[in-house]
C-alpha cells in the first residue's frame, strides 16, 4: 500500500519555506469600493505554486472564521485561461511565458511583500476581489470567430494539403488561452491581440480564408462596441502574453480589416 509521501520534495533538494507579506485587493462587488488588505503568511513551501500559496492563505482565513479571497482558476496547468491576477505590477506575475497558476513560490524571496490585484480594464468589470467578468471575449468570438460549417457532410481531412509552416503559424496564433492578460497589460485596454490571434489563425488556413475579411470586420466591430480601447502598437500585450502570441498577427488582422473596408 503506497500512501502519498508528503514533505519530501521530489527533486531531493531539501524543501524550503519562506515567510511573505501580501497586499491583496478586496472588493465586494462591481460597484463596491475596493481596497488593499495586508496579510502575513508563514511557512510557504518554495515548491508550492502561486495559487497553492493563496489556498494556504485562504485556509488560514477560514480557520480565523473570515471569508476567503475570491479568485478564478481551474486547470492549474496553464491552459484553461481561467486564472488571472496582476502580481507585482505584471499580469500573471514577473516570470515570463507562464500563467499565474504555473508561477512557483521559488521565484519569491523570504520576507518579500507581494502585491496582488485583479485585471484592471474597462472591458473586465470586477465581480469580487480578484475575480473579473471576461464574458466580453465570448461575445467577440460569437460575432464571427468561427468557420461557418455545419456538422457532417465534410470532405476528407486530407483533401486540402496545408504547408507545414502555414499550419504551424496558425497553431502559434491558436495557442491563445483567452485569459485577458493582453487587455490588462494594455494602457488603452485594447483587445486587439486576442482578436488578431483568432482572425489570423483562421485567415491562414484555407478552410477559414473564405470568410476572413468578413470575420475581421465583425469581430473588430464587436470589440469596439464592448468598450475595449484602441491599439496604439505599444507591444505591451505581446510582452505579457503567457503564450507568446506575436503582434505580427495584429498586422494580419489589419490587412483583413482593410480588405473588408475596401469591399464595403
Amino acid at each position, binding site marked *: 500500500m503506497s500512501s502519498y509521501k508528503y514533505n519530501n520534495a521530489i527533486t531531493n*533538494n531539501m524543501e524550503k519555506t519562506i515567510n511573505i507579506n501580501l497586499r491583496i485587493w478586496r472588493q465586494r462587488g462591481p460597484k463596491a469600493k475596493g481596497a488593499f488588505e495586508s496579510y502575513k503568511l508563514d511557512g510557504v*513551501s518554495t515548491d508550492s505554486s502561486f495559487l497553492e500559496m493563496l489556498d494556504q492563505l485562504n485556509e488560514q482565513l477560514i480557520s480565523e472564521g473570515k471569508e476567503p479571497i475570491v479568485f478564478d482558476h481551474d*486547470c492549474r496547468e496553464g*491552459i484553461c485561461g481561467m486564472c488571472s491576477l496582476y502580481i507585482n505590477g505584471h499580469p500573471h506575475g514577473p516570470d515570463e511565458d507562464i500563467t499565474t497558476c504555473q508561477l512557483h513560490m521559488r521565484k519569491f524571496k523570504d520576507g518579500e511583500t507581494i502585491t496582488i490585484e485583479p485585471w484592471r480594464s474597462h472591458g473586465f468589470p470586477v465581480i469580487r476581489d480578484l475575480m473579473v467578468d471576461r464574458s466580453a471575449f465570448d461575445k467577440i468570438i460569437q460575432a464571427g470567430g468561427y468557420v461557418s460549417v455545419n456538422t457532417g457532410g465534410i470532405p476528407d481531412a486530407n483533401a486540402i494539403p496545408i504547408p507545414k509552416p502555414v499550419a504551424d503559424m496558425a497553431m502559434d496564433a*491558436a495557442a491563445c488561452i483567452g485569459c485577458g492578460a493582453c487587455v490588462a497589460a494594455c494602457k488603452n485596454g485594447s483587445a486587439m491581440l486576442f482578436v488578431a490571434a483568432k482572425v489570423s489563425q483562421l485567415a491562414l488556413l484555407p478552410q477559414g480564408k473564405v470568410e476572413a475579411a468578413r470575420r475581421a470586420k465583425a469581430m473588430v466591430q464587436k470589440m469596439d462596441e464592448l468598450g475595449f480601447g484602441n491599439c496604439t502598437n505599444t507591444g505591451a500585450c505581446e510582452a505579457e502574453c503567457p503564450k507568446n502570441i506575436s503582434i505580427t498577427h495584429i498586422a494580419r488582422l489589419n490587412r483583413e480589416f482593410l480588405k473588408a473596408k475596401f469591399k464595403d
Partner: protein
Amino acid sequence: MSTDKKTKTIVAKIPEGALSEKWSNYKAQQKLVNPSNKRRLDVIVVGTGLAGASAAAALGELGFNVLNFCIQDSPRRAHSIAAQGGINAAKNYQNDGDSVYRLFYDTIKGGDYRAREANVYRLAEVSNSIIDQCVAQGVPFAREYGGLLDNRSFGGAQVSRTFYARGQTGQQLLLGAYSALSRQVHKGSVKLYTRREMLDLVVVDGKARGIIVRNLITGKIERYSAHAVVIGTGGYGNAFFLSTNAMESNGSAAWQVYKKGAYFANPCYAQIHPTCIPVQGEMQSKLTLMSESLRNDGRIWVPKKKEDAQAVRAGKLKPTEIAEEDRDYYLERRYPAFGNLVPRDVASRAAKERCDAGYGVGSGLAVYLDFKDAIERLGKDVVETRYGNLFQMYEKIVDDNPYETPMMIYPAIHYTMGGIWVDYELQTTIPGLYSIGEANFSDHGANRLGASALMQGLADGYFVLPYTIQNYLADEIRTPRISTDLPEFAEAERNILERIERLMSIKGKRSVDSLHKQLGHTMWDFVGMGRNKKGLLKAIDEIKQVKKEFWSNVFIPGEGLDLNVELEKALRLADFIEIGELMARDALHREESCGGHFREEYQTPEGEALRQDDKFNYVACWKYMGEDKEPEMYKEELKYEFVQVQQRNYK
C-alpha cells in the same frame, strides 16, 4: 432500455444485424423530427466540454432550441481544454494496417473485455468524420512537410493513428467545438448559461424535464425546463482530491441523476495514468499529467540495484551517473512486444510494483522517464519540436531540466471509465435523460486507451446524440413548453435550499479542503491502484466517518445565497464522499482484476490482472434505494459475438 426487477438485469437496446451494420440500420429506422417542429423543442445540455459543446452546437444547427450550461466563466474553459496528447481515428493515413475494425478491436481489448461491442464499433466508425469535421473548423492539427496530417502512436496500439496539435490537442478540439457553439449562439439557436452549476434534475411524470442550478455569481437558485436533458459534465476523478483533473471537475450532476433514478455503471473503474509529476508537498492541489505521447520516445526505468535507488533517494547519486547496465527498463523487460507503449493500467501497476519493492527514486514514489537515447537518436531539436511545451511545463513545476536529467514520474488518478449508465442511444434509465462524454460509462470498459476520450466526447456530441435523441423527441412534438412553475420544480428547489441551509448552519471547525484531502487519502490508499477485500471494507468504514465529520463539523464562511466558493466546494464534496463509497462498494463486489480495477487477490503468478469471465462479464449498474440504504445492483450481461475474449497480452 428495459430492466427486469426479478432477474435484476438490464438490456441496452442494441440494434439487430452484423456489427458493421448496426449503426446504419439504426439510422435507417430511427424516428426524426421535422424542421418546423424542432424549433418548438427545448433541449438542456449541461456541460461545454468536448461532449457538451459539440452536442449543443450540433443540436443548434439542426434547429432545436438549446440551453447550454457550464460552471466556468466561458464554455472554452471546460476541462477538455487540458487534454494534451491527441485523438484517435481509423483513417489509416499512414498505411500501417489500421482500419475501423482494428480501432474497435484495440479499444475492446484495451478495455479488458468489459465494454459493449456495438457502442465501441460505432465509435470507431464515426472516428474518421471527427477529424474531417475538426479540420473544416480550422483546427490546426500537426502536419508533415507534404502538407498532409501527421500521426503519432499511443499506448495499447501498434499503429500510428493519433492526430494531435502540439501538446494541446484538447485545447484545439475544444476551441473548434466552442467556435461551432459560438456560431449557434450568434444565430440564437443556443443560449449560454455560464457560471451556473446544476444542483438537481427535475423529473415530471417519469421524464427528465429540467434542472435546478445555482447562479455562482449571485448565489441564487434558478429553474430551467426542457423536453430532454443531456448530461455532459465530465468525470468524477476528483473524488481522490489529487488528480490530473481541473479543480472544478466534479461528479455532482452524475450523482444527482443517480439519486433521481438513473443507474450508475461500473463506478470502480478509474484510470490511473502512469506519467504524472509526483506529489510534492502537503499544499499540493492537483497533479500534472505529462502526456502519454512522451512514451513514444522516452524510456522508463529504475535502478537495477537497491543501493543505487537508496543513493539517488538520499541525493548522493545522480541518475545520469548510473551506468546503462545498472538500469532496469522494466517495461521493455516485462513486455518486449509493446515495451514502453503498454496500456496505462499495465504501466501504472508496473511502476507501483518497482517502487513498492524498494526501487523507487525521488521520494521513493517515482520512476525515471528518460530522453537521453531519443536526444542521441533524433537530436535535441526534434525532441524539442515534439515535446517542447511538455518539457517546459515540467521544468516550471519541478525546477529540473529534462533535456539533461531524466524526468521523474508516478501514476495519478486521471479518468473515470465508470459513469452514468446509458443504452445504445446514450439514454439513461430515466426517459428523456441522456449522458455523453466522460460522464457516461459507455465505451472504454475497464480501461481507456490514450487519445480515445477526446474521440468519444466528440463522437457522442457531433455524430451520435444528435441522431438518437430525435428518436425520443419525435414523440414529444405535441408536448408544449414545460412550465417551471410545476410542483416538481418547486419541490426540487426547496430541497436544494434546505441542503444549502443545512450546510451553512453547521458552522464547525474543518475546512472543506481538509475534509476532501482526508477522503482523498482513503481513496488512494484503498480504492487506488491496488485493492483488496480488507482494504475496501476499511475504506467504506473510513468514508462513512468522513461523511459524519463533514455533516457535523464543516465550516463554510459567508452566505448561502451569495457568491460563495467554499459552499460550491462543499456541495461537490458532499457528493464525492458518497461517490467514493459507491466506488469502494463496486470494487468490493467485483472479485476479479480487470483493466484499471486491480484486486490483489486476483493476479497471475507474473502479477498480471486476472479476470473472472464466468462470473463478472457484465456491467454493474447501481440503483439508488434511498439515503443510508444499500444500493441495488442490476447487471447488463456483455455478449461478445464478434471478438474472441482473451487474456490480454502485451508481451
